């Protein structure tokens, strides 16, 4: 019985797991603006960060929060913010800035019912497409989605690692259920965490420092931190490898393509997915976040009823792992995408399917979790037809 307390086992909510992970992974700067259901992240950090000499800032709005963490990140600190739908919409412009300028940061979006103010205290998964496409212009992005308190921890660490090592914003797309759900979790020792750091300039400051130069097109540029003597420029205009604006079509193309290759060339590494009961499955549930819990429950029940059901739980939503669906066992006849929205990831699965299997969706947006019963009903309906 005592074992648990010794092993640093905690019974905490997802939002707190996120904080614990962030602190363990070295985040020492947070700026945010309160919004349900993400506020606990800010509240806990406002108490914890000063203890370790870190900085907590409550800014005047979400845009300012985003600006502040990007400024802090440019000085070398690991920085993050947390918000929910309305705030996430407001952050979009500066998310694009971070993508283009390759400024690492983690943005937690605890999804609630939308659109607009929507259902502020209810869960939803309506921001999945927005997380990919919310800012103007082509940009690369990584979006991770936890379905338990444990994953809230692990994916927070992963988000920080990906962001630092790839110099790209990473969005942790949680939902009200996972964020407010209390579960038992054993917190790892900070020293057991594998942490990745941002690529550093190879040389000391000198004449010709090219912050955005890379030797091959999928590499991550070795951008210095402010204050180290490199005296370089960062701009949201399309820029050359020297960091200064350019209008050149060739350079524009080169920059945008490098930004995308940075992510796409690491697709399989970035895309985490969990497969359950997939060996012989002919009908596959595909889900993510809190909804994956309903699916896990439904798969067990379906198996109990003799249905060959399997489960794919996506942890990485973007970049989208087309390859996962390309490699599906040909035995798979149908993939049912289950999500608390009116049809978002199901579109991606449809696209990735290329007609190789049927795609169906359980897309419900009403502020409550989709139930295992609803899923079973759908499965049985599909089998009957």
């Amino acid at each position, binding site marked *: 019985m005592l074992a648990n307390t010794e092993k640093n086992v905690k019974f905490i909510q997802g939002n707190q797991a996120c904080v614990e992970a962030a602190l363990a992974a070295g985040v020492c700067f947070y700026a945010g603006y309160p919004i349900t259901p993400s506020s606990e992240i800010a509240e806990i950090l406002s108490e914890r960060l000063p203890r370790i000499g870190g900085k907590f800032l409550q800014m005047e709005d979400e845009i300012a929060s985003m600006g502040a963490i990007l400024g802090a990140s440019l000085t070398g600190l690991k920085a993050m913010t947390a918000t929910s739908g309305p705030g996430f919409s407001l952050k979009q412009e500066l998310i694009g800035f971070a993508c283009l300028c390759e400024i690492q940061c983690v943005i937690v979006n605890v999804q609630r019912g939308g659109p607009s103010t929507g259902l502020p*205290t209810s869960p939803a998964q309506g921001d999945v497409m927005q997380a990919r496409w919310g800012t103007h212009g082509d940009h690369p992005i990584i979006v991770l989605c936890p379905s338990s308190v444990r994953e809230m921890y692990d994916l927070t660490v992963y988000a920080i690692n990906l962001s630092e090592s790839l110099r790209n914003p990473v969005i942790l797309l949680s939902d009200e259920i996972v964020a407010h*759900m*209390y579960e038992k979790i054993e917190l790892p020792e900070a020293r057991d965490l594998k942490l990745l750091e941002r690529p550093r300039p190879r040389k000391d400051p000198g004449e010709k420092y090219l912050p955005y130069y890379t030797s091959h097109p999928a590499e991550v540029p070795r951008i210095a931190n402010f204050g180290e003597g490199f005296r370089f420029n960062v701009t949201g205009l399309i820029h050359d490898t020297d960091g200064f604006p350019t209008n050149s079509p060739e350079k524009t193309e080169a920059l945008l393509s490098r930004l995308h290759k940075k992510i796409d060339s690491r697709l399989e590494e970035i895309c985490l997915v969990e497969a359950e009961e997939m060996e012989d499955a002919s009908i596959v549930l595909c889900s993510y976040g809190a909804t994956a*819990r309903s699916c896990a*429950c439904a798969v067990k*029940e379906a198996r109990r009823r003799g249905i060959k059901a399997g489960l794919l739980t996506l942890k990485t939503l973007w970049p989208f792992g087309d390859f996962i669906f390309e490699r599906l066992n040909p035995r798979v006849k149908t993939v049912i995408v289950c999500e608390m929205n009116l049809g978002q990831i199901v579109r991606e699965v449809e696209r990735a399917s290329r007609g190789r299997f049927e795609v169906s969706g359980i897309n419900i947006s009403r502020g409550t979790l989709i*139930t*295992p019963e609803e899923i079973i009903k759908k499965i049985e309906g599909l089998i009957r037809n």
Partner: protein
Amino acid sequence: MNILKLLRKLKVRRHEFPANAEGYEIIFSGSGGQGIILGGRIFAEAASIYDNKEAIMTKSYGPEARGGASRAEVIISSAKIDYPKVRRADVLLAMTQQALDAYGNMLDENGLLVVDEILIKDVPRRFKNVFKAPFSALASKLLDNPIVLNIIALGSLAAITRAVSREALIRAALDHVPRKVLVLNRIAVDMGFKVVEDSGFKWVRVQKK
């Protein structure tokens, strides 16, 4: 009175298959200031950390969070818990009339209802297993501290259901209270047990269909 009819009117969704069959699904409900959510959390934590079971807690609240009914849903099980929400509660703790009215229909027909007999005046007859105690009065009159009403109730819940052990509950409760009220809270847990013992109340759990 035809219970089935009543059930239908109240739109209890009948489950097509049992989930978390071996575990307990418990709803803690009341109004904002009563510490109900914290109560649920302590109960779940007792089970999970100190009794080493699986437990999960979720909360529900409207935008009217601050005034209206609040509720914590706790599932305690020996196996991994997938679906985190309570579908049909084995136990419902209701600390206000509003809460009982709002969540009463989530209780299984054979489930246990625990209410504060002072704050709740009207317990519909359809509830078969009802344990009533004056938790609020016990807290304010006997312990001179209205805040511990939730802890007393947890003690009673544990006593009736055995979903958590007395020791685990005490430790979990003490984890969450300021040092100066440790003793008070310990006494509150014991009082919850005592109330049940004194009443001789028993509840035999029937497996949900």
